[in-house]
């Protein structure tokens, strides 16, 4: 009698270092394979599609600068999610905070007009965007820190309110954000003093480097400072924080506000960068939601967020161009994004468990 084979999950005492890199990498590959099956089933050539995406997303100077340009906002929303996630605060409303950042940034740009020089205007627009993002998460942050209300629900629901707010500001005739007497539902362009110029003929703006710098600063803050120390204690053991006299409520509040501000910064980056105006199209792009996937793939490691942000930007911009160059649906990029999230989350099992097959020995039974 052949004995049956059982799959055994054995918990690891320690996760080998290489797995922390290998698992996300394999997740991406597995997602591409799953995507290939989908493409095959729908009658497209996976190899052609992927080659096109690769060259449009990464392997051409045009492609890579477009990717880095798009990654600017994705790193913002990615770091926004990761910053909250590291303390087990699940801010999944980065999307809404991003809209608010756009509204705040556009408001600053339009309200201050052309009176101020660029070196004042640009930081002001970015700062107001961040502030608006923080403001949007204030209520979820406050009720979470005081009453323990689930921030997952509150931040998510407020995203829908934020989307309505964008529509309201754009579609209401005579709104501050639109051109007077124009029936066309589109925001007014901010003045030139509030706009940055892209490098050469690309869509890469200097804000990319600012965002990378912000990310690295946050990394330092968490690893080296008292504030980061508190975050680590509370994240791992709220009881130990209580024991040591660390005020968890205040830290919870501030971490969520910073998370909201980072998504808001992402919205403002779009104002000084490619969009230049409050654009209702933002609600169709899902940059905020993408941040959740980016943070998950980076496993909340801030420097890895930069890498996974660029990777996602490449998938997105490569996918978008596919529609133009071939007739492959634009949604292939979004589909791959979802597949990567699923595989990255599933891959956690391999980090936590050693999985092996055993032949069960059967004797008299």
């Amino acid at each position: 009698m052949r004995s049956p084979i059982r799959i055994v999950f054995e918990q690891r005492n320690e996760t080998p270092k290489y797995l922390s890199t290998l698992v996300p990498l394999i997740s991406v590959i597995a997602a591409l394979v799953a995507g290939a099956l989908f493409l095959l089933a729908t009658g497209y050539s996976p190899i052609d599609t992927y080659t096109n995406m690769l060259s449009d997303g990464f392997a051409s100077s045009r492609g890579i600068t477009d990717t880095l340009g798009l990654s600017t906002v994705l790193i913002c929303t990615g770091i926004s999610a990761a910053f909250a996630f590291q303390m087990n605060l699940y801010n999944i409303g980065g999307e809404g905070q991003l809209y608010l950042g756009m509204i705040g940034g556009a408001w600053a740009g339009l309200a201050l007009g052309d009176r101020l020089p660029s070196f004042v205007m640009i930081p002001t627009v970015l700062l107001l965007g961040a502030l608006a993002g923080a403001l949007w998460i204030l209520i979820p942050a406050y009720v979470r820190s005081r009453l323990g209300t689930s921030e997952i629900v509150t931040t998510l629901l407020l995203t829908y309110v934020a989307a309505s707010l964008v529509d309201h500001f754009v579609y209401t005739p005579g709104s501050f954000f639109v051109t007077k007497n124009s029936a066309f539902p589109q925001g007014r362009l901010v003045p030139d003093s509030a706009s940055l110029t892209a490098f050469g003929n690309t869509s890469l703006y200097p804000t990319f480097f600012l965002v990378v710098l912000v990310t690295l600063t946050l990394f330092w803050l968490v690893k080296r400072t008292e504030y980061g120390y508190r975050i680590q204690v509370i994240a791992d053991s709220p009881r130990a924080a209580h024991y040591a006299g660390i005020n968890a409520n205040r830290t919870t509040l501030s971490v969520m506000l910073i998370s909201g501000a980072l998504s808001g910064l992402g919205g403002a980056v779009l104002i000084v960068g490619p969009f230049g105006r409050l654009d209702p199209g933002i609600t169709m792009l899902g940059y905020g939601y993408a941040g959740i996937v980016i943070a998950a793939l980076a496993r909340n490691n801030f420097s890895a967020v930069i890498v996974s942000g660029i990777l996602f930007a490449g998938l997105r911009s490569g996918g978008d161009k596919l529609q133009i160059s071939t007739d492959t649906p634009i949604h292939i990029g979004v589909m791959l994004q979802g597949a990567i999230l699923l595989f990255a989350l599933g891959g956690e099992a391999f980090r936590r468990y050693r999985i092996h097959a055993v032949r069960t020995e059967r004797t008299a039974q």
Partner: protein
Amino acid sequence: MTNTSHEVAKGPHHESGAAPSALSAHSIVKRFPGVLANDSVDFDVLPGEVHTLLGENGAGKSTLAAMLCGLYQPDSGYITRNGERIALSSPRAGLQHGIAMVHQHFRLVERFTVAENVILGSRDLSFRLNRSELEDRVSAVAESFGLPIEPGATVGDLSVGQRQRVEIVKALYQGAEILLLDEPTAVLVPAEVEKLFENVHAMTQAGKSIVFISHKLGEVVEISDRVTVLRNGRVTGHVSGRGTTDTRELARLMVGRDIELTTQRASHATGHEVLQIRDLSLNVGGVSVLSDISFNVHAGEMVGIAGVAGNGQKELAETIAGLTSPTSGSIAITGSMSTDRGPIHARELGLAYVPEDRLGMGLVPSMSILDNLLLTRDRNFVVDRASVEPEAVRLIEQFEIKANGPEHIARKLSGGNAQKVLLARELSGGRSATKLLVVCSPTRGLDVGAIETVRALLNDARSAGQAILLISEDLDEVMSLSDRILVLYRGSIVHETPGESAQLATVGAAMAGLSTEGNA
């Protein structure tokens, strides 16, 4: 008990037959990643016998027990039941062979009644439960072994000892012939321990076999017919003979060297009052948890708080440590009021606090030893780890902490070493020199060797003039270390006695809430 039904429990009943041992393990090997947990272990238990499996944490006794009841499968070796080779693929298969385990942490549904818990998992139930019939069946099984239980009571309302009884009844109801009891006395007061031993006697009289799994050289060993000692996954010795066991010899077999568990007390006169508690009361959600507690602890004195878990010990410790504000009353540390001032203020006055939950409250599991040393100290905005590192290295050396260095993650330390890190931090002072040390169950779950070290550290701290409040559910520990013993029962101090002249029976009775003065 009002119930006198004579129905017999349904379940497999194995005849012991001519086979010599009820259950035996033959050359069992079990490997975990990086650990050889069992290295060709032989073990057997006879019908009607009490056999103790003794060993330190990590000696492999729990692994062996898990294989005997079907939770794990051996990598090699085999198990026989009445001389017949069996394969236990799951705890259910174990039960089918009449083997059941009573875990240290009970697996009961608190909202269910006793009877509901006992029948949980039975497969021969009809869709519609006949409550009174089930309760009759359950109490019939319980009574046949002299285990008094109220089948209709809700488990959440029962004491720990009663819950343990429910677990045992459940095993018997399921037809267990061999019961594996994991640290059965760890959670019981002396009177309950006695009751348990009576039950064990009744069960062995009925031909059941009992396997105790223990890391303590306590009463369990005394009522055993045989003791098998494990160390590092190997059997290091067998001792047989009821009541004649030499604990020193057993300790040596367990640890591999001679052990000296000192019971020294403060020889010198104690100093000034370091901790003064006056009329302390605490209500939580309208329920009185601590009421009218007043006592002092002097410099160079160790005061022990004895009591059964859940009688207010944790709340008392947390109130002194500034983590909880009392409803009324006052606490003074080194003469200054610390009531309502928070944990940092209490530490500035000289408090050090070793909570019972060392990994999760006292230490942050995912942080390094170095970062954990910083937990109760002043930190600058940019945390200056480099300047603390030499001290971390020194403490690791001084307290003989087995670690790869200051960067060793707390979670990866053994229980004993984690406790040493916690004591090292608390004894070495942080925001000010330690004058008052509050320690909760400092040796709970530790090996004999580590217990020896921790107790020696506490003794040294006392000799150095620190005032120590020892709060422990381990009565032996409180009895052997304290200069003065207070018994906490339902949030009040019901008994006070000098450590030297303390009587186990009197303290035990006070812990169980029996008045020690007058009405006997």
